[in-house]
């Protein structure tokens, strides 16, 4: 009894420790950032008011940038030492002043893990600022990991769980829960109520599972198939560390707002901003529903074209009288073999500009030029054309494979019975194509839904973001719109939910067709 109790407690303890440690690291890093930034801000304010500077802060007044007399493209800044201006040498301070001119007030913890905070403020009210106060704190280390607290709490929890097990079955579950409670205490002390709640819920969950004898059954099953599980361990561990953990972190990030290196919890506001359209009207390219519409249209248009062209070519290539079938097949799958970022860049080059290859071709046929990336319809068509070029070979190959399984005698029998070409296609070819094309369409639609490279490299969202799809827009939130990581993470979560619904729905559809 006590052995099994300790086993269950060990599971709770390991998970609780991971959660508590993550909470501790997050809390102490935030505290350090807040403390250091406040210190640097105090120093910047002291510079402005000519007050005494706090010690351990390197704070200076930096001038506006002036072109260098010898190389006008180089810009120089001065630093005020006493009451004299001297050339500024420190690159960190120079960059801070640069950023101030570009983005306004700067306050952040440097990303080099040194614990230094950097603040830039203007000391006067004129713009561009002639005297920028830049403050840089000295390095600081966050609080050390409290090993003693952890060991103490683990001991306490183990004792509680073991004592419960000795008293009887009801006390056993109570002991387990109390033990988990002991582990939640430090998280509470570190001002991480969410982590403490999660640990408590975990304890309650395992206690309930124990009541239903679930923990015993799982343990027995694991022992029974321990060989298979041990073979599975390397890949499963890697997947847990590389996929499950980042995935969970990604979902958590969606509930936060990111601004210059500091994260603040904002609850559901990212999601409500996205789903309400963020104050943009429905025909505005920044509105989520507009982008979703473009994405759906993009996916449907591509899949219809890929399947139609692919099946038509497969039907033609499957004719035995066609000379050179092998060569044609080889040539037609060429787009699939080329890396798709290269395909995208080629098509971008072909559509771009007055002298692009496509416009030259149009002129050759006596048509007038099209400025492909300046209107939505033409830019979207350019994307669809490029993606169809690279996407139809997959459908063609799948369809060819399915057509090969049809026995010629079926067609002969149908001809003898007087079936015309359409009836033969409708009643023989189509039913044979369906089981192969179903999964291919499911897979292809997910690929197309997520076809980042084509959108990002062919139309590049032009004109004015109107040809973005969901994945490219999520990317732009993170890396091209002032590091709005929280928004990007919320976007990714929404994309995930859409794909999840689509996959479940899609596989159901495929299964039903197979049945």
């Amino acid at each position, binding site marked *: 009894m006590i052995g099994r109790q300790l086993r269950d407690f060990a599971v709770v303890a390991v998970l609780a420790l991971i959660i508590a440690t993550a909470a501790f690291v997050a809390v102490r890093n935030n505290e350090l950032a807040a403390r250091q930034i406040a210190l640097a801000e105090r120093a910047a304010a002291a510079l402005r008011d000519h007050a005494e500077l706090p010690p351990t802060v390197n704070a200076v007044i930096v001038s506006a940038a002036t072109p260098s007399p010898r190389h006008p493209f180089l810009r120089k800044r001065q630093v005020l030492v006493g009451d004299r201006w001297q050339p500024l040498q420190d690159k960190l301070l120079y960059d801070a002043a640069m950023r101030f001119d570009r983005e306004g007030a700067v306050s952040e913890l440097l990303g080099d*893990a040194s614990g230094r905070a950097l603040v830039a403020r203007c000391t006067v009210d004129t713009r561009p600022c002639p005297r920028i106060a830049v403050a840089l704190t000295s390095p600081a280390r966050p609080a050390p990991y409290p090993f003693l607290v952890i060991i103490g709490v683990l001991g306490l929890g183990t004792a509680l769980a073991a004592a419960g097990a000795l008293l009887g079955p009801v006390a056993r579950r109570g002991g387990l829960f109390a033990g988990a409670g002991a582990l939640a205490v430090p998280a509470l002390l570190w001002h991480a109520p969410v982590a403490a709640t999660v640990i408590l819920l975990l304890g309650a969950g395992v206690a309930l599972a124990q009541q239903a004898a679930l923990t015993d059954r799982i343990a027995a099953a694991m022992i029974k198939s321990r060989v298979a599980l041990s073979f599975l361990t*390397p*890949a499963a561990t890697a997947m847990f560390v590389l996929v499950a953990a980042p995935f969970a972190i990604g979902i958590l990030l969606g509930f936060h707002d990111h601004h210059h290196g500091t994260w603040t919890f904002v609850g559901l506001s990212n999601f409500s901003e996205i789903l309400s359209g963020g104050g943009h009207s429905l025909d505005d390219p920044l509105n989520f529903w507009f982008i979703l519409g473009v994405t759906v249209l993009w996916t449907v248009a591509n899949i219809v074209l890929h399947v139609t062209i692919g099946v038509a070519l497969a039907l033609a290539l499957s004719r035995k*009288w066609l000379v050179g079938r092998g060569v044609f097949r080889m040539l037609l799958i060429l787009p699939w073999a080329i890396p798709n970022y290269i395909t995208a860049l080629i098509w971008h080059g072909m559509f771009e500009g007055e002298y692009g290859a496509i416009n030259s071709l149009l002129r050759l046929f006596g048509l007038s030029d099209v400025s492909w990336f300046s209107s939505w319809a033409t830019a979207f068509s350019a994307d669809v054309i490029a993606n169809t070029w690279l996407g139809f070979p997959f459908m063609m190959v799948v369809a060819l494979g399915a057509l090969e399984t049809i026995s010629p005698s079926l067609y002969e029998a149908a001809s003898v019975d007087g079936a015309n070409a359409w009836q033969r296609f409708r009643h023989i070819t189509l039913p044979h194509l369906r089981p192969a094309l179903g999964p291919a369409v499911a897979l292809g639609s997910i690929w197309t839904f997520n076809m980042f490279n084509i959108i990002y490299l062919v139309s590049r969202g032009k004109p004015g973001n109107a040809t973005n799809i969901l994945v490219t827009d999520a990317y732009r939130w993170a890396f091209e719109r002032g590091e709005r990581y929280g928004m990007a993470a919320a976007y990714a979560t929404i994309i995930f939910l859409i794909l999840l619904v689509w996959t479940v729905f899609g596989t159901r559809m495929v299964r039903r067709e197979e049945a």
Partner: protein
Amino acid sequence: MSARRPHLATMIGAYAGIALLVAIVLYPVMLVCKKAFEPGRNFALSASPLPHSLTTAHFHELFTARGGHGELLFLRATLNSVLIAGATTVVGVVLSCTAAYALSQFRFPGRKLGLTAFLVVQMFPATMLLLPLYVILDKLALLNSVAGLVLVYSTTAIPFCVWTLKGYFDTLPRELAEAARMDGASPWLIFRRILLPLARPGIAITALFSFMTAWNEFIMASTFMTDESRYTLPVLIQQSVGQHTADYGLFAAGAVIASVPVMIAFYALQKYLVGGLTAGAVKG
């Protein structure tokens, strides 16, 4: 399909349709090959797919271009790509072999869940994990490092390898493992001495595919590698036609060199790829 000769009109129609599609497929490829050997930076000043004069200047420029630290950019990027794709392949195949064996040869509770998990992870876009991975690698100071990008690529390489290798283990005769088990061989011995040697062709194909995937990956590499000396080939090639300066001659030369080995591998292996992809989708 029926072997008797059809109407002349059908034949002409089929040939014309196929010829048109072949022309559309070949045209962009020919334009790039033309550009790689034709002088000038602009992509196409005429619609003709044939060059008006020949030069190897673009290749010369590509191989001699130097970065900020005097390194040869193209060779450096090629080396980075080979290293990263190679390491990803090794990590993927080594970690997946045993898992694929377990999922193929054993029946245990949670097997179906595991298979679905490995499949679903492959279906969801890399861009889903891009942001959290970026934030984590930033914290760990692994941006701009080969190791960081290998970790990122492993998120897709491992599930891919598990599924393809599992498919290959499924095709091996079960009797061999049964007989060895009768003789008292341990599961590890059976795996190590019997199934792994038999699965060698499958492992080679899987390895080549994961190498190609990592070799062709663009967006993760361009996000995680911002230092010129850490660029992989796709990033370097994309940079040559970036926002500010577009040199399509350089791009075309790079594209030809980066694509040709992949295309050869693709043609050699394509029948395995199609089978593996659709089998995975059906079983999911």
